């Protein structure tokens, strides 16, 4: 539906412009409303995409099944983060507070707009531009807290991510060059043209473009070894932004890699693109699992968990069974919900205990009955426990992997995920489940800091349970369509 | 062999004579121009000849502890500088009989031998500044050699031979040869090497006696009389030889005699000397525009020259340029 596509692109940017001028309460409400609207529009796109094959609005916007798979979790996180931010932000009075609020909300809306638009644009060039916009906006948002750590994290982030995007630009140009052999020297990089002509592209150029794209966009996705900015940026940013970074931005960068993957599959056959992703995925999963065992900072722990899950995604894409691809796409959605909820819980804990240091937080569930319990549930979800969505998606990936010639990889994946579970569960038991020391109870008191946070977490967990127990019919069809699109090879 | 025109041995001898006689002239022109740039009247252009004549008449004083090497070294160096013009295109575009004795690498070796001889005799003298100059010259020579090698490689792979005559012919053949990046980079690299080897700013102060910065000039401090005259003449000849290689092989190989007509050959002499003087003026301008580099920064300068030479080879070999 043209109208829905246009609406979903216009609403967040309009709200961005509005929140620059409106006072805090109005900005809050507008952002939540925008989140609801975007999510509803995204859900409307689901059946439309599967029945029509793809939707278009002008030459620049195009939504096929793969795009919608990525728009849905981003829109969902937009909604829940908006609710969470309403309860999380503690602003100083006066002009400083107003300035922070304006920059925060305008930035939040602009960031979400860019992440929603990126899967919907038609063409590799526009995709690059959209992801560059996300980098730029998120770098400013990481630095918004104006602490030493935030400045350092923002500098590292913007430098490494920009370098990665420079490489990704080179990848785009090399892919363009590959296309000139088929399309002549002037054409735009729209997906239908690329996918149709890809089997005639010169293989050397496509190989170079694929590797450069994985390295370049991999810096933004958090693939080892170019992930070094990720733990810093995700832990030093304000928590709502961390949730968006981990849950949505990594997925959007993965989408970019998938588009290059699609073209490479048609041009080169399945072996090369899959092996590239396998290599990076294994490295990411291994490193993240090891680092998870030694974390002291709550948000850094969750950041490494994101690296772990990105590794799982990359490894999943390297399996040839369609079941695994469906699992990967489901994992994108489920991980977004789970990571968002986990960060919301982390934010609630930080608000309550006024520290991120894991060694000083004790008795989480006792002091935060709702958000503490839900944080534990979210972390269990991240480790792959039923009945949450990630269990289903990881199950699909592993079973697909076991029927693949590379079945040893599936076994390694299970081992490493278990290792990561140890790391996460140590944190959970140490901080949340232990009884509260009386001193802390006396100073901090029991009770939630804000009911907005609770509502956001309930929404996230509800989504996870839905995905875990029974994936809605339309969504399942969407996932299968998208998987089919990714499986086409020469 | 046609009988019209000069016999090849005569032309060969003429090449040597040109370098021999023209070298002090070029030095004189450079010194004069430098003086003019600095706002002085500058020494007269023929001054080096008078200096050489005077030096040959003076007595030779030898340090007590030195051996026969002290006196033989300048002669060896001078002899080497007389051999090299036989190998490179000085006046003609075609190879002369003795010219095939050695290729561009051979010419390089003979020049290195000359430098070695000069360093040995200055080390022989036992004087501190002379030895300092000698050791510095050897050190920087070791850094210059890779650059020269790469320049030679660039020449060799462009023409698939390393006879300097062949490269000159290639450069003359079309404009595209001049602008190809391998050629330009190699030429600039060689220009920097010449600058370093002839002891010009920014590597060394050519005039005056700043002992702390002396490299080439310091080596001849202890000599006097006829050996000193031979050393000075030899260094002027080395300068002209390097200029000749730069001009006749890389930059401006026009004006060389195409056949053995005496008119053409004789005309080639002032053409060469004129071009060398022009090049010398360029060096004089550089001399007065920059300041001398501190000794440890000379490695950066030489690294830059090496970079250009390496790029010349890379761009050609891997890029077809």
């Amino acid at each position, binding site marked *: 539906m043209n109208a829905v596509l246009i609406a979903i692109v216009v609403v967040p940017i309009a709200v961005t412009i509005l929140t620059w001028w409106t006072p805090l309460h109005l900005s809050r409400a507008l952002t939540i409303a925008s989140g609801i609207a975007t999510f509803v529009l995204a859900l409307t796109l689901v059946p439309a995409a599967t029945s029509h094959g793809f939707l278009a609005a002008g030459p620049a916007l195009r939504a096929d099944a793969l795009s919608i798979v990525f728009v849905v979790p981003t829109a969902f996180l937009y909604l829940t983060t908006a609710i969470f931010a309403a309860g999380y932000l503690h602003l100083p009075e006066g002009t400083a507070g107003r300035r922070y609020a304006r920059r925060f909300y305008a930035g939040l809306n602009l960031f979400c707009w860019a992440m929603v638009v990126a899967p919907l644009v038609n063409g590799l*060039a526009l995709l690059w*531009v959209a992801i*560059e*916009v996300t980098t*730029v906006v998120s*770098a400013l948002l990481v*630095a918004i807290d104006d602490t*030493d*750590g935030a*400045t350092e*994290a*923002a*500098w*590292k982030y*913007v*430098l490494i991510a*920009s*370098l990665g995007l*420079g*490489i990704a*630009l*080179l990848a785009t140009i*090399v892919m*363009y*060059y590959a296309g*000139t052999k088929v399309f002549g*020297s*002037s*054409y*735009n*990089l729209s997906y239908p043209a690329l996918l149709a002509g890809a089997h005639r592209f010169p293989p050397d*150029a496509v190989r170079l473009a694929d590797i450069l794209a994985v390295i370049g966009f991999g810096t933004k996705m958090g693939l080892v070894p170019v992930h070094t900015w990720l*733990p*810093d940026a995700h*832990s030093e940013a304000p928590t709502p932004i961390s949730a968006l970074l981990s849950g949505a931005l990594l997925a959007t960068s993965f989408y970019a890699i998938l588009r290059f993957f699609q073209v490479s599959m048609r041009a080169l056959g399945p072996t090369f693109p899959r092996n590239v992703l396998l290599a990076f995925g294994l490295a990411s999963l291994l490193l993240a699992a090891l680092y998870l065992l030694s*974390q*002291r900072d709550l948000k*850094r722990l969750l950041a490494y968990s994101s690296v772990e899950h990105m590794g799982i995604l990359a490894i999943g894409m390297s399996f040839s069974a369609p079941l695994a691809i469906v699992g990967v796409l489901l994992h994108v959605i489920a991980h977004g919900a789970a990571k968002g909820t986990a960060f919301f819980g982390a934010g609630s804990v930080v608000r309550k205990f006024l520290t991120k240091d894991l060694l000083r937080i004790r008795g989480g569930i006792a002091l935060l009955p709702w958000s503490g319990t839900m944080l534990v549930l979210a972390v269990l979800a991240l480790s792959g426990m039923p009945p949450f969505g990630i269990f289903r998606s990881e199950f699909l990936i592993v079973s697909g992997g076991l029927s693949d010639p590379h079945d040893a990889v599936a076994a390694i994946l299970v081992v490493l995920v278990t290792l990561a579970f140890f790391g996460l569960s140590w944190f959970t038991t140490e901080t949340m489940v232990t009884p509260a020391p009386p001193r802390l109870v006396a100073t901090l008191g029991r009770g939630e800091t804000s009911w907005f946070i609770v509502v956001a977490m309930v929404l996230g967990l509800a989504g996870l349970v839905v995905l875990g127990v029974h994936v809605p019919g339309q969504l399942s069809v969407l996932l299968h369509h998208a998987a089919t699109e990714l499986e086409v090879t020469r | 062999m046609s009988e019209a025109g000069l016999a090849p041995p005569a032309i060969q001898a003429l090449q040597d004579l040109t370098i021999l006689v023209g070298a002090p002239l070029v030095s004189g022109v450079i010194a004069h121009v430098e003086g003019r740039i600095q706002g002085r009247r500058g020494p007269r252009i023929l001054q080096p000849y008078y200096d050489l004549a005077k030096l040959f008449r003076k007595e030779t004083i030898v340090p007590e502890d030195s051996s026969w090497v002290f006196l033989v070294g300048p002669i060896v160096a001078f002899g080497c500088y007389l051999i090299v013009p036989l190998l490179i295109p000085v006046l003609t575009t075609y190879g002369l009989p003795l010219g095939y004795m050695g290729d561009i690498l051979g010419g390089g070796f003979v020049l290195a031998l000359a430098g070695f001889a000069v360093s040995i005799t200055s080390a022989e003298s036992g004087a501190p500044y002379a030895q300092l100059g000698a050791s510095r010259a050897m050190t920087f020579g070791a850094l210059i050699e890779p650059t020269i090698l790469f320049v030679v490689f660039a020449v060799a792979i*462009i023409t*698939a031979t390393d006879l300097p005559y062949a490269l000159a012919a*290639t450069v003359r053949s079309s404009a*595209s040869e*001049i*602008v*190809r*990046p391998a050629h*330009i980079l190699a030429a600039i690299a060689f220009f920097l090497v010449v600058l370093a080897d002839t002891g010009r700013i920014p590597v060394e102060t050519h005039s005056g006696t700043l002992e702390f910065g002396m490299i080439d000039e310091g080596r001849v401090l202890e000599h006097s009389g006829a050996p000193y005259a031979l050393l000075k003449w030899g260094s002027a000849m080395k300068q002209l030889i390097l200029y000749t290689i730069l001009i006749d092989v890389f930059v401006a190989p026009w004006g060389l005699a195409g056949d053995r007509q005496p008119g053409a050959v004789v005309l080639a002499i002032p053409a060469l000397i004129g071009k060398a003087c022009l090049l010398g003026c360029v060096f004089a301008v550089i001399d007065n525009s920059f300041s001398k580099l501190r000794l440890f920064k000379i*490695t*950066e300068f030489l*690294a*830059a020259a090496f*970079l*250009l030479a*390496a*790029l010349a080879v*890379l*761009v050609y070999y891997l*890029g*077809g*340029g």
Partner: protein
Amino acid sequence: MAHPAPSTFTGAADVIAVLVLLSEFAMLRAPLLRSQVRLYAFQSLVVTVLAIVVAATRHIDELYVLAAVSFVLKVVVVPRIVLRLLSRAEVSLAGSSAYGVATMTLIAIAVSIFGFFSIGALHLHSTALPSTALAISVAVVLVSFVLIILRSDVVSQAVGFFSLENGVSVASLVVASGLPLIVDVAFLFDLLVAVVVFGVLMRVHQGRTNTLSTDPLDQLKG
């Protein structure tokens, strides 16, 4: 083994491309941050000239517009922004680096050789510019990495990133000269926005730590 000489156009274009690489090497050496920025302006100028050369010989009129826009942005605006930041920062204006200049030059040469070899192995041909220029652009990208890794002050790192974008521009001139103008301009404006962000973060960094060096940026570990 001797290749025939390329045409005059090819040779001239190659020389201009080599100038881009040489200015990248010069940035490795430049001790003053101001001279780094000026070298970047020079490099952008050379890239603009290259764009005009391609536009003139291959009759691609859109490239003239692109050359004009990139001249304004990369030669005038971006250096102006960075120089203004430098003049406001009342701190020492000399960059620092882990190794000496000669070592860094040798590392950069080794890296360029790797770049040349990898592109040479790929046999990519184009009609707009000789494939030497593509190898040179990849070498520029790799040397800018060396610059970013080995120099330890924010301005050098930012200028390194900008020069990486110059390298990618040369690559796009070689293999993608027909890229639609809209796309090229979009890339350029994205670069401008990135520059603004870099500028903001540099100012914030300098405001907090009172220095342009990246040595204080080592708190977050593990």
